[in-house]
């Protein structure tokens, strides 16, 4: 990473040295490993690390501990996928909209996916993950287009406030409509209320395995978008002057973001604030170069989600506080701070 053509020259001085960033990335990878181990070991039934290693070497379904470990491993995998997907999606959305408040939850994208999934379950009788992930994509895409188009009409284009308000309004509408569907169907309601909080509990292998390829594909695609996002961050005119096909770059980024949000929502339900948190934190560390922001958020997302999941299991013993709730409780104060102490146009 010696060549720096994609970086805005005026901002280059703020970027830390490459070796320091690489070391930070390695440190984060270790942190991901650490929270993953914590995710397997900590819970209502604490498990010795040695037992966990035994299960890894010779898995025996007859031993209760080993089953618990297997369940928690799937849960941790789900957390890794969801965190990576939502963290990257937040960065991508902030990149294309140049909006510091862009977050899959705040802009209603996750609510759109959630509403589509509820419709799929209640109205079309879809039960498999592979069946409703397409509904999730469609819902996420529809809301993304509506919110962005509506938010960018009129004077000043897509200002942060207009887009955020459009997202909040569309979310309010979708929540009301979701409730309307749920009231007609108590079986769906009973399943759905555990899903709508945004939780990693009880996500079994049959749900996670078919959705994992979507997340992985989205992650890989996202990591290649750094250069395009760097160009976009200079504004449309400069970007096309640099030879970037602006419309194409936007469209591809948006599709990747929608795939990431849709599959994350299909796994865990609507989770807010991961994208917002991760994107700001990553930018704080790396400076404005998206080629560093993207890998950082790929690792920060899982750390955040898994840490929140473990925290939820620790503070509400013997029950648990779902990860979506922990993140909302942490994320809303962060958003309020952001609104109070940062100039909104700053990005």
């Amino acid at each position: 990473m010696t060549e720096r053509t994609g970086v805005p020259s005026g901002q280059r001085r703020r970027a830390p040295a490459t070796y320091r960033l690489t070391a930070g990335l390695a440190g984060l990878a270790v942190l991901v490993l650490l929270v993953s181990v914590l995710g397997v070991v900590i819970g209502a039934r604490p498990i010795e690390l040695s037992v966990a290693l035994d299960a890894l070497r010779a898995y025996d379904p007859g031993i209760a501990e080993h089953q618990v470990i297997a369940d928690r491993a799937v849960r941790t995998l789900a957390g890794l996928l969801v965190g990576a997907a939502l963290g990257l999606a937040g960065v991508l959305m902030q990149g294309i909209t140049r909006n510091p408040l862009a977050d899959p939850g705040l802009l209603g994208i996750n609510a759109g996916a959630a509403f589509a999934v509820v419709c799929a379950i209640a109205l079309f009788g879809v039960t498999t993950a592979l069946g409703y992930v397409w509904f999730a994509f469609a819902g996420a895409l529809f809301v993304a287009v509506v919110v962005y188009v509506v938010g960018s009409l009129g004077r000043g284009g897509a200002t942060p406030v207009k887009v955020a308000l459009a997202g909040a309004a569309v979310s309010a509408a979708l929540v009301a409509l979701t409730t309307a569907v749920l009231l007609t169907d108590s079986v769906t309601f009973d399943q759905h209320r555990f899903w709508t909080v945004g939780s990693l509990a009880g996500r079994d292998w049959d749900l996670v395995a078919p959705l994992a390829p979507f997340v992985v594909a989205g992650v890989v695609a996202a990591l290649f978008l750094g250069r395009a996002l760097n160009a976009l961050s200079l504004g449309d005119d400069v970007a096309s002057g640099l030879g970037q096909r602006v419309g194409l770059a936007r469209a591809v980024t948006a599709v990747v973001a929608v795939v990431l949000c849709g599959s994350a929502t299909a796994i865990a339900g609507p989770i807010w604030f991961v994208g917002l948190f991760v994107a700001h934190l990553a930018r704080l560390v790396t400076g404005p170069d998206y080629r560093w922001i993207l890998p950082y958020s790929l690792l920060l997302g899982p750390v955040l989600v898994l840490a929140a999941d473990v925290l939820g299991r620790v503070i509400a013993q013997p029950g648990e506080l779902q990860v979506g709730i922990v993140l909302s409780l942490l994320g809303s104060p962060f958003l309020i701070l952001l609104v109070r102490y940062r100039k909104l146009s700053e990005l």
Partner: protein
Amino acid sequence: MPTSLDTRPPTVARTRGRKRSRSTVVSLVLTAAGFLALCVSVSLGEVTIPLPDVVRALFGDDADGMSYIVTELRLPRALVAVLAGAALGLSGAIFQSLVRNPLASPDIIGITGGASAAAVVALLLIGLRGFPVSLAAFAGALATAAAIYVLTWRKGVTGYRLVLVGVAMGAMLTSIVSYCLTRADVYDAREALVWLTGSLNAKTWSTVQILGLSLALIVPLALLAGRWLLPLELGDDTAQALGVPLERARMGLIVAAVALAAAATAAVGPVAFVAFVSGPIARRLAGGPGIALVPSALVGALVMTVSDLVAQHAFASVQFPVGVITAIVGAPYLLWLLAVTNRVGRGG
């Protein structure tokens, strides 16, 4: 929406007079329509009562023993719909004008979310039923609004910060509601869901009395403070030059609007979009640059009553809570309004 205002001097007075009389006519027509909807909603049910009998029973004349059904069984529900709808409409109109954005109604900026969270905690975690739940909802809305106001305050309150802080609070409160729903057993959770949608079922005279009394207190204050809205819409500097005490006016208006939304939500639950649609519809009907507070309240009452009629009688097999209908009607209208307001540059 403010339409073209004719400013040629000789015609100003005439134009203004026309606007004012139009607003009056609109209010009268809305009142008549609201009364008609109320009569229809009272007349329909398991026993259908002819409209003339309904009107006679309403004015105290017992026609064929129908007055018990009319006054004891059906009228409370209809009256609660009218009162709550009017309160929501008025509250929405004040917020929208104050923040100068038609999207800033109490349901979207998180205030009714506070009522919901408090009510669901009361219903599911504490196990309360009936009036205490309403009280909790009222307190929840007020507390949320106060929190939003305090968190927004930074040498004054600006519209966009109010909205964004409201959105953040709303997110937090929604997650509390979802958490409570997962904790409860499925029947309790369903009951809570009906409350969360907003329902007029099982409303009695005691609800009418409580809601009526609180509105009798708040509405005059709201209308009185409403005279500051027009100068405030012109911008802070102009308003100050016109002698409006800025922060005091804003504070008073917010308190009135929040109290209205809280009272209505406590009575019927957070019925979606009534507060949101009433203001813009009323403005369009009444025309002119005014804020149209009275027409907004009347539109709110009409929307609520008609939605409840549809929710109760339009589907043969099921009776929906009223909030389902207002949501289905309100959501497309919201999208259209979002598009229009942004295009004319009033979206923020």
